[in-house]
Each structure stands twice: as C-alpha cells, then as structure tokens.
C-alpha cells in the first residue's frame, strides 16, 4: 500500500468561508488511487452538515466521486479518522457546509472553485463551478489515505464488519 494525500491544508489559514458554501480546492490533487481515511480540517466557527469528498473533472466542470458526511464539528483543527472516501489520482478535494465556516488561505495556493447558489453538489453529477477571482486561494483541509490492493481480498474502505468478522482499525488513529 502506498500513501495518498490530497488538499493543501496545514492548519495555518486564518480567513474564513461563509455558509452555506460548496467549494473545491484545485491545489494538491490526489497523487494516487485508493481510499481516504483521515481528514484534517480547520474549522473557524462550529459547522453543521459538513461534507468532505473527492471530485473528478477539469477546468470549471467537476463531479463528486465520493464523500463523507462528517456532521457537526466544533471550532479548531479537527482530525477525523476511520473514513472511507474513494479517491482516484488527480481528484481534488471539496466540501459543503450548511452553516459555520472553514478557514481558507487568501494567497499562495492554487485556487478554489465555488458554485453559485451554494447548494450541496455531492450527488455525482457534473456541475460548472465558478473560478473567477479564486486564484491563489486554498481551503485549510487535508486528507490522507492509502492505495488499495486488488485481487488479494484486501479490506476495502475500512468496513468494520465483513462477513461477520470484526475488523478493527478502519484507519489510522494518529494525528
């Protein structure tokens, strides 16, 4: 198994997004294909219906591949483990907030995409995102995971119970 990472977050951003918001970060696309099990997200204000996931596409047109509904998160740098989010090489990271806010960088990053109407777009369909005036911005979200071995009966995605057997440790628990 090889390590996968996606997103540009490092817990140092200070500006905050609004809500509801549906934004994608074009920085640091996934370096490989597999499953993301850990998300580190810097929350500015307590959020609700917080979804984080992967998106495929290019330019302004992106479609969600997979996501996790994280639920309510308090302010601070939150480490969430045990997730199972499919990712393919070159996917980018995106999130949706119903309320609250996430920290973002105002410069020095690749750029964001956002969608007018700010509705939840984690439905697998392709939507056209707005990239105007988003150059240099970045979300303070970062996710890691591993490639998944195929053909060897590997545990996929971190299901806890497979075939009646309890499989512990859906993902790393280390910050």
């Amino acid at each position, binding site marked *: 198994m090889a390590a996968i990472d996606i997103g540009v977050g490092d817990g140092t951003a200070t500006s*905050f*997004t*609004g*809500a*509801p*918001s549906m*934004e994608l970060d074009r920085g640091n696309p996934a370096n490989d294909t597999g499953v993301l099990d850990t998300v580190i997200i810097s929350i500015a*204000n*307590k959020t*609700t*219906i917080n979804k984080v996931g992967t998106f495929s596409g290019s330019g302004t047109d992106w479609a969600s591949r997979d996501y*996790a*509904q*994280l*639920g*309510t*998160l*308090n*302010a*601070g740098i*939150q*480490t*969430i*483990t*045990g*997730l*199972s989010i499919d990712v393919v090489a070159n996917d980018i990271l995106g999130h949706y907030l119903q*309320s609250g806010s996430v920290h973002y960088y105002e410069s020095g990053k690749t750029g964001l995409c*956002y969608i*007018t109407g*700010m509705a939840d777009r984690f439905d697998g369909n392709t939507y056209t995102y*707005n990239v105007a005036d988003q150059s240099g911005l970045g979300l303070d979200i970062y996710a890691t995971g591993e490639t998944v071995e195929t053909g060897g009966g590997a545990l996929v*995605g*971190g*299901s*806890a*119970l497979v075939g*009646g*057997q*309890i499989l*512990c*440790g*859906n993902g790393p*628990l*280390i*910050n």
Partner: protein
Amino acid sequence: MAHFKIEKSGCCEHKGLCQVRADFYWDEKDPSYSLTECKIYPEKGYEGKVDEMGVPVDIEDYQKWEDALPTEMKHLPFHSHFVYFPYTVTDEEILFCFELALDWRVKNQPVKNVKPVWDMFAAQASKARIKSVKAKDFSTVSEIYSVK
C-alpha cells in the same frame, strides 16, 4: 483516561452501511482535560450583508458582531472517529469497536514539543517484551482475537 460518545450528527447510511461517528473526550481527571471558551452563535447567524460565497462583505462589522457574542465554557472532543457497520450490527459490537478505537487513539496520543528521554530500564524492558511478542503468533481467528 478518556471516554467516547456517539455523535448523532455524523451517523447516517453510507454506501449501504451504517456510518457511526463517535467523539473522544478526556475525562475530567485526565491531565489533558480542558474546557474551551466557545461563542454562542444565534440560530439565524450573521444577518449583515454577505457576498455570493456567503462571506461577510464588511469584515469589520462581522468581527464586531462576533466579538459581542456571549460565550460558554465547553468540554470539546479531542478526536472524532468513524466506523462503518452492516445493518446487522448489534449495540454491543458498536460499543466494542469504539472502545477499541478509543484505546488505540489514547495509546497513540501524539506527544508534541517534548524531547525524547532515553530510559535504559524502559528500553531493556521493551526489548524483552518485543522478544516475547515475536516468539508468539498473534492472529485473528473468526471473531475472536487469539494468541497462539
């Protein structure tokens, strides 16, 4: 020590499985226990003008509004963990998995800004313990964890 609580906002169906989230909290007597001052946001949120992305247009006005919010001291979780179960899962199995996850997380608590101190006794004892671990064959057999 620590305990966990199932966080209902993170529980839902996901890919045909039951997604369950638990938040991990330090117990009151643990050295890591602390309370955090949290703003109490009104349900309506900020009612000033916001742009297309929902970001306040007048940041100073927003900051003023936020600074004036009342606060409360809260005990916040130090970690959130998810486990995906089939619908046949029992309450006991959910508890078992999260107890294990919590134990794992507590034992892997990152130590920051602390210089490692080499302890000869601990090093020798750890070497001996590892030797005994390597002498056995740890494996999972069906639903039972066993040591042969």
